[in-house]
């Protein structure tokens, strides 16, 4: 029991980050499930992280209110952004959202109240593990149920063929936008929790590398259902800690694992239990993600 407690204390950050990353992975899952590759969720997390941290630090907001405000701020930014960028598709969309992310990063660097290049330090550590995992549970449940509702079916149809989906009466833009804004809201919530989890944030944490990392969680985990992104976040957050004894060979193993999973389970870890179905989807050349 004591050993467990010790383990828990020691790895409490890692455990927390698994939950935070799982939320971020789910946030990008929403758009991926719709067939849209967006890379803006790191920036949304950043906006909310800075927003909520400034509210608790400088304006003395209570923690839950600050979190909500941060997430809403991210969602509010995502709405006009989505309305403009969803004219684009595929890589173009990905790069447009990426460019937006860079603009956010550079903007944070230019605004004095954010601490600019030095980052924001001294955020009150209000986030507890149960906050993170309760949030994850709620978010995962909502995503899972949405997936099998009319909304989820419409998203899947858009992924398979936007034009045909529109012909079935689905307002494609609105649905894509909804997925995007919901994703931003989730990413924002996770960003706010993350900012209050470890005292300090800095612009680089929300840049390109982070955006790609979130994408890796979701894709390696698998898009077909909501367990995929959670699994992916679990694996790739825990892996660095697990592989610590390998020292300088750790990156190599991590790379090898990444390639192996993608090559042998191209639709993600979550498809491990449905290899037959995956093989059939493969032969028909179905879209799975953008």
């Amino acid at each position, binding site marked *: 029991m004591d050993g467990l407690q010790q383990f828990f204390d020691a790895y409490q950050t890692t455990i927390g980050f698994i939950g935070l990353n799982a939320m971020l992975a789910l946030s990008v899952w929403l758009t991926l499930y719709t067939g849209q590759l967006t890379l803006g969720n790191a920036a949304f997390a950043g906006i909310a992280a800075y927003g909520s941290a400034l509210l608790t630090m400088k304006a003395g907001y209570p923690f839950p209110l600050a979190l909500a405000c941060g997430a809403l701020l991210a969602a509010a930014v995502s709405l006009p952004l989505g309305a403009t960028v969803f004219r684009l598709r595929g890589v173009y969309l990905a790069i447009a959202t990426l460019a937006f992310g860079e603009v956010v990063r550079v903007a944070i660097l230019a605004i004095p109240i954010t601490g600019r290049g030095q980052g924001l330090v001294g955020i009150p550590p209000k986030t507890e593990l149960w906050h993170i995992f309760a949030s994850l549970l709620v978010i995962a449940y909502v995503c899972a149920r949405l997936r099998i*509702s009319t909304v989820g079916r419409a998203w899947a149809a858009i992924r398979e063929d936007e034009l045909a989906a529109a012909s*079935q*009466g689905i307002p494609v833009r609105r649905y894509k936008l909804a997925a995007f804004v919901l994703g931003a809201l989730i990413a924002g919530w996770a960003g706010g929790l993350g900012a209050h989890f470890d005292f300090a944030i800095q612009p680089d944490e929300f840049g390109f590398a982070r955006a790609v990392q979130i994408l890796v969680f979701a894709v390696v985990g698998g898009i077909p259902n909501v367990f995929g992104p959670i699994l992916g976040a679990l694996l790739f957050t825990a892996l660095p800690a697990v592989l610590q004894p390998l020292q300088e060979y750790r990156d190599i193993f991590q790379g090898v694992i990444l390639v192996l999973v993608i090559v042998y389970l191209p639709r993600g870890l979550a498809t491990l239990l449905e290899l037959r179905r995956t093989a059939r989807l493969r032969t028909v050349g*179905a*879209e799975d993600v953008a």
Partner: protein
Amino acid sequence: MLLETSGLTKRFGGVVAVNAIDLAIAEGQVFGLIGPNGAGKTTLINLISGHLRADGGAIRFADADVTRLRPDQLARRGIARTFQSIRLFKGLTVLENVLVGRYVRSRSDALASLVPFRDAARPERERARLLLERVGLGKRAGAFAGELAYGDQRRLEIARALAAEPRLLILDEPAAGMNPTESAALREMLRELAAEGITIVLIEHDVRLVMGACERVAVLNFGRKIAEGPPAEIQADPAVREAYLGVADDA
């Protein structure tokens, strides 16, 4: 008239693909649209279904101007269509394809679905199965759409369009890839649908199907309407024989 177009025009660069087309299609009619390859048939229905924006002219559907509406808005008003180059949701099952087709008829259950253990879609699935039986795909409900043979994919497209219970059904070469026996079965189905009161616009190169199923036929050539009338009249029209049927037709 359920559907009316007046002076409908669409240009691609220098090509006038659809040139000042006037059509009037009455409720319950089966209306044929024929013409050589590249005559502008598909372009015309793309305009009607909102997939293309007209450069000129107007479209009226059910007594309302719908010229500038988007495909999804038109679908909600009761226009359903199939595609010449099949556009199914390949990675969804046959049943799911039909369920998506029911989108405009089903209420959003996004909130209801949050209630645990509730299966909001069950009645919808029953309807979808019936529809699949009707087009002869009852046994393939669980297959992915992309796994179907070409002709079966066409049937599924029709089932998906019907799922929306449309007032106007537009079919773009539904019999392509079907042999004469299969297209005869399709003809029967079109007659049944017409009897149920659905208005149908049919584009086909299968002359036997067009002549057998349609009450009225329009002929396009180079974007212009060169003839319109009952099938027998059209078949006898020398301009049509010259442009479309070929002089020694025997199909």
